[in-house]
């Protein structure tokens, strides 16, 4: 019997030692940017395609921010340091690629559960994700946000062979100053790192995924309403805004005969709550994608624009914001606003052209 006891002890000790070593390596290197966003030379860049749906759930719990930003990858351009300098509230950006209103709602619920400091929510809205059949992002995992015993992420990031392999890649890439497996896409505050170099044809590929048909999801509208209620119930300030998408994108809505749906979307939004609308045919949205720094790429405005949006919504440094940028729309002024938008379109010389040709040199 003693022999069996010894065998059991040796086997379990060897196992525990090996598992602990793997977990320690993965924790220190942190290939997915979950445990610490360190600036060390060996792990500054993180693995390509690391999952922000996972890391941001971790970070919001860790940082306990007073303000959060919700929305799609466009919302990732609302800069947490700017929010902090304007309001004094420390902020974290939970913008997630292709996040639908349902996902925003679940992350808001989650933030309320894990973040005792939460006071303010900035909610970015994008027309495309309100499509009825818009699929839920593959990385969204509801259990992560709702389960009382969700250990999958811990094991996947600390005790997995793939994490160990990714740790090796991260160290090799960082030490060799290469970016074969790594990149620096997200910053420690959850916002997007604008220094990321986009692959060629990013703008063209954005046009390829623009909607050609659209049916407004009533569920998505319901979740906007629920978010508003949730904020009211928890005494949170809520700023809802529509992203300043580029005129080329607006024009694809127009040319794909989705303009009525686009306007209806805004009408239904203001029935729920007043909204800051930064979209439209104006100098910023019509500006060059390459020269003026208002856009990171066709789909995403820049942090410079994000700051202007914050100034407008928070009514700070208002002199630096162009007067046309950001209209507070309510059910009282929505029709006038929509009419202005239609009129403004006429001013854009590129309207009615083939947008694939326009974007190539814009």
């Amino acid at each position: 019997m003693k022999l069996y006891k010894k065998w059991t002890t040796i086997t379990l000790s060897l196992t525990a030692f090996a598992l602990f070593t793997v977990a320690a390596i993965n924790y220190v290197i942190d290939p997915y940017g979950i445990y610490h966003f360190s600036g060390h030379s060996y792990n500054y860049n993180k693995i390509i395609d690391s999952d922000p749906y996972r890391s941001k759930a971790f970070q919001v719990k860790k940082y306990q921010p007073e303000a959060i930003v919700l929305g799609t990858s466009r919302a990732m351009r609302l800069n947490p340091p700017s929010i902090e300098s304007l309001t004094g509230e420390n902020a974290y950006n939970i913008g997630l690629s292709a996040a639908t209103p349902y996902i925003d709602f679940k992350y808001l619920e989650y933030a309320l559960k894990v973040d005792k400091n939460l006071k303010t929510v900035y909610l970015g809205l994008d027309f495309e994700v309100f499509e009825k059949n818009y699929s839920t992002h593959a990385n969204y995992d509801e259990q992560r946000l709702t389960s009382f015993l969700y250990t999958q992420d811990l094991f996947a990031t600390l005790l997995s062979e793939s994490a160990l392999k990714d740790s090796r890649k991260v160290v090799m890439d960082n030490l060799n100053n290469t970016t074969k497996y790594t990149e620096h896409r997200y910053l420690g505050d959850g916002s997007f790192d604008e220094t990321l170099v986009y692959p060629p044809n990013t703008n063209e590929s954005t046009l390829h995924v623009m909607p050609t048909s659209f049916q407004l999801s009533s569920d998505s509208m319901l979740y906007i309403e629920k978010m508003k209620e949730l904020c009211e119930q928890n005494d949170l300030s809520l700023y809802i805004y529509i992203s300043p998408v580029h005129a080329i994108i607006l024009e694809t809505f127009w040319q794909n005969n989705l303009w009525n749906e686009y306007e209806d979307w805004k009408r239904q939004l203001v029935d729920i709550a007043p909204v800051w609308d930064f979209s439209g045919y104006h100098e910023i949205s019509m500006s060059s994608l390459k020269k003026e720094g208002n856009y990171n790429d066709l789909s995403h405005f820049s942090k410079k624009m994000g700051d202007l949006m914050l100034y407008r919504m928070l009514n700070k440094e208002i002199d630096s914001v162009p007067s046309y940028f950001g209209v507070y729309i309510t059910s009282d002024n929505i029709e006038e606003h929509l009419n202005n938008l239609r009129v403004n379109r006429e001013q854009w010389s590129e309207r009615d052209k083939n947008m694939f040709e326009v974007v190539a040199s814009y």
Partner: protein
Amino acid sequence: MLFNSPQFIFLFLPIVFVGYFVLNSIAPVYISRAWLAACSLFFYGFWNPRYLPLILLSIALNFLIGRSLILYKKRAFLIAGIVFNLGLLGYYKYFDFFLENMNLLFSTDIPLLNLVLPLAISFFTFQQISYLVDCYRGKVENYNLINYVLFITFFPHLIAGPIVHHRIMMPQFQSASNLKINFENIALGIFVFSIGLFKKVMLADHFSTTVLDGMNYLDTITFFDAWTVTLSYTFQLYFDFSGYSDMAIGLALLFNIKLPINFDSPYKARNFQEMVSRWHITLTRFLYEYVYYPMQRWLSKRFFSSPRFKLNTNIKTSINVLFLFLLSGIWHGAGWNFIIWGLLMGIGVVVYRMWSKWNIKLPLFLAWGLTFCYANFILVFFRASNLDQALLLIKAMFGLNGFILPEQLSHVLSPLSTVGVHFGSTPLKDKYQALGLIILGFIIILGFKNTSETMKTFKPTLIYALFIAIIFVYSILNLTKVSEFLYFKF
């Protein structure tokens, strides 16, 4: 909860284990038994607590009926108990299948119930029927409620077997010597559990990638890809289910409970009867004891005794065998594909029995090859979601969709083009990896001892400690894609 999940291995299992033996040392036995039963119910309800009341109702009613049968031995009680158990199983597992066929037959449009199959219902139903039958036969002692609950819910076997018999389990639960920590059992338990985990995570789950991929292209799948997919499934099913059974046996050993073996190298079999007797042994044993023999007696008495149905013994046995495997097919699932699979199993056994009468001995390799190919072929019906899918795959396996090999092989195998083999691309991904895995599968099933054989020769040596630590750690590091066991759906 799954055996191959981190929550189970690192949280549930240590808590249950420590709690059980601590309670054994400080509290009366019924407390530790109750702890084990409560933990088993938590394990059952972890995914979907909706069916907890159902299993509890089933246990309570069967326990009461069992008591009544022990006391009064009334046939009506037994029939009521069997009807209740089969009724529950029939309602949840077969009612929609019945409605579908009624709709098809009579062109009606009765809406389906779309019921979710309660986890483990096929397993706990059979265990409880055998208990009731034995109560009626007077073969059961008067067990107490906690032991009975534990017999049904004991988490190592609850979800997907082995199907355990009260004669094996109850004495172990009631034995005082099993209450103390036994390091020999623990060492063996860790050894078997680790092998099972490795089979599931490193073998079955990798075979499943090829299977899932191949099932997407059934309309156009060609000969070589079809065989790659079916062979991958044949290995996936074996490593998945035998891996689960190994884990169950290992886990039970940690609590000093010995579960019966469920697999005995079925793919080494050299005839089909041998293969079915080595595959899912506890189900076959149950069906023989509680279905085959009673049915044989009943048919002999009521049916075959009539002068109009005078049949020779071989034919009578063949009919019984076909019926037995038809039932096995139906037990596995509500669908024509399972019924056909069951019948083909029966036909395989009947054909072997007839062949063996002629005393023609085939060379060993040919006998093994024919047996394995037949098993591989009929598993198409087991894997397919419906008959159409199965027929598409079979068509391709017989070459009716053409023969296409990867372009890279055209230099080496170009002469094959004269016999109709083409070289080009097909949609099945990672073919060479799939082929490598299949070869590895053959090496493992033919060249190595199975788990129960290895258990017998297990020695607590440093080599074994290193081997187990390596495969255990490697399996743990690959648990990130936690996948269900195939037998969970039965």
